[in-house]
């Protein structure tokens, strides 16, 4: 069943960015597999942490929320210190008002929609029910007041969870992979809703995800996280154009990566592909990897001058709207490269000898 589209046009909800809304995080925590060691600032924006599963993203949010305690460090929100290991400050989660939206929304199963919201409002009974009704209106939950969470759709649950966070007067919004458990259709519906919501309800937001597309569509700044460390922080355009690190390149969807070393100013050797390549950029001395996106190959039927190799086709995979061709340079024992192209383009090319050119301006040079 299609989710009814909704938009929040409530004056009260359409706040402006506050002046002092800032989150400062600098914490360390020893985990089983690695040490979480993060340092970042978020100010009046939607800030994403992009990282693979198990890289410490959720733990970071839990430390900010106060349900986990860092070994050392400092957390500050809107000028208030939430955690400071040196001064022995560690506010309890209920004093932090951190607005944690859990992956599964974590609605209270024994309470109706109305009760879920009213339960977290402070004050008198009248105030609780007045506030709950107000948020039910705002989030278009009328008619669902007496329904239990298990009987709500994913979209409705998300709305209740949001209403609950706002009703509890959270100062921050932390979204922990909000779409990861959903099928792709519902996911898109919820993303549209979330996009509207974030636009209308201007709160400093931390969004964690392993999905580059979600991050690109919803956020302003992106931190790339790997093994508990934040590798790079930049605006979202920067991170996709120039990922700088191998992790960032892979997370932003770069399908081909190889160990590499510098030959001279504009030449490098890609070890895993066994190719010597020319690049328009200056090759840095500390080059360690090179990346190349799968749809940037330029196919020809004859050998070209620069960065061209005769492609040996290993495997052809038909995808929904494209072909994925796994190739390696002829007569070489290199790692496979992934080439993606439109279906009709492949139909025209197949059965002919294929030469592939790696355009000199499309190589991604990576330092670590």
């Amino acid at each position: 069943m299609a989710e009814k589209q909704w938009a929040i046009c409530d004056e009260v909800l359409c706040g402006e960015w506050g002046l002092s809304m800032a989150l400062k995080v600098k914490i360390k925590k020893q985990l089983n597999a690695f040490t979480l060691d993060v340092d970042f600032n978020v100010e009046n924006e939607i800030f994403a942490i992009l990282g693979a599963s198990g890289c410490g993203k959720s733990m970071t949010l839990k430390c900010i929320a106060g349900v986990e305690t860092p070994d050392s460090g400092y957390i500050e929100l809107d000028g208030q210190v939430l955690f400071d290991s040196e001064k022995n400050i560690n506010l309890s989660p209920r004093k932090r008002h951190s607005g944690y939206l859990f992956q599964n929304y974590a609605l209270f199963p024994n309470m109706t929609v109305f009760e879920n919201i009213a339960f977290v409002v402070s004050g008198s009974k009248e105030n609780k029910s007045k506030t709950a009704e107000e948020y039910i209106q705002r989030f278009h939950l009328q008619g669902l007041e007496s329904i239990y969470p298990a009987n709500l759709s994913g979209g409705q649950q998300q709305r209740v969870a949001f209403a609950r966070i706002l009703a509890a007067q959270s100062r921050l919004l932390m979204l922990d992979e909000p779409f990861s458990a959903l099928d792709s259709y519902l996911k898109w519906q919820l993303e549209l809703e979330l996009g509207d919501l974030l636009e209308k309800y201007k709160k400093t937001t931390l969004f964690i995800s392993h999905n580059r597309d979600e991050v690109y569509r919803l956020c302003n700044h992106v931190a790339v996280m790997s093994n508990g460390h934040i590798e790079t922080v930049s605006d979202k355009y920067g991170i996709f154009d120039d990922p700088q690190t191998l992790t960032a390149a892979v997370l932003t969807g770069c399908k081909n990566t190889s160990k590499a070393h510098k030959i001279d100013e504009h030449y490098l050797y890609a070890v895993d592909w066994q190719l010597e390549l020319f690049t328009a950029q200056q090759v840095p001395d500390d080059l360690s990897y090179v990346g190349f996106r799968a749809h940037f190959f330029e196919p020809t039927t004859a050998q070209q001058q620069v960065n061209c190799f005769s492609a040996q086709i290993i495997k052809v995979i038909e995808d929904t709207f494209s072909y994925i061709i796994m190739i390696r340079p002829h007569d070489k024992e290199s790692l496979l490269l992934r080439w993606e192209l439109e279906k009709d383009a492949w139909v025209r090319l197949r059965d002919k000898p294929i030469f592939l050119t790696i355009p000199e301006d499309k190589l991604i040079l990576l330092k670590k």
Partner: protein
Amino acid sequence: MMMDYSPLLISVKTSCLATVIAFFTGIYAAYIVVRLKHFQGILDAILTLPLVLPPTVVGFILLIAFGKNSPIGQIMMSFGYSLVFSWEATVLAAVVVAFPLMYRTTRGAFEQLDENIIYAAKTLGVSDWKIFWHIILPNTKHSLIAGVILAFTRALGEFGATIMVAGNIPGITQTISTAIYSAVQAGDNNAAFFWVGIIVAISFVVIVLMNLWLKNNGRYAMKSSAGNGV
């Protein structure tokens, strides 16, 4: 011969009181153990031991711990009170054997509860007290009921520890279980049949009532049929 109904009364009084005590202590112990970071396995083993040990062993340990020569027994003696062979001793024996069932069932339920729900409540500013009463307990009530029933029926059937620490004194510590033993010893098959019938009936009815209740109070997932066609 007139039937002496005191074992029924003593058994029911003992089991009810023991169940109430096991209910609160069992939930409390489960709440603590689930949150322990160290020595969880050891504490759990100690709390579960009365469930797996022979009741005579439990009775013997209680006898040693609360007997006249023990420190606890000495203190009680100085107040002119002796626990051993008193009605309170039947309650003590019943609590000790019923407690692990309540504790185990509750602990399982607490561990199955999605911890994100608790975290969410905390980050939304709800106090621990309210979380416990309004979220943890309601969401585990099916297991708690099951634990209560198991504890009650176990307390009702308690024999070994009771006879060792409380004896088998008619009108004071003689429960249905020990009355059956006495009846068989005395060759009074009619009395034995009578008490066996009573204890089977009580246990059966209690379990059937529990199942009926569970059926009519399904999980919240199935509670409302007024879903919205999702």
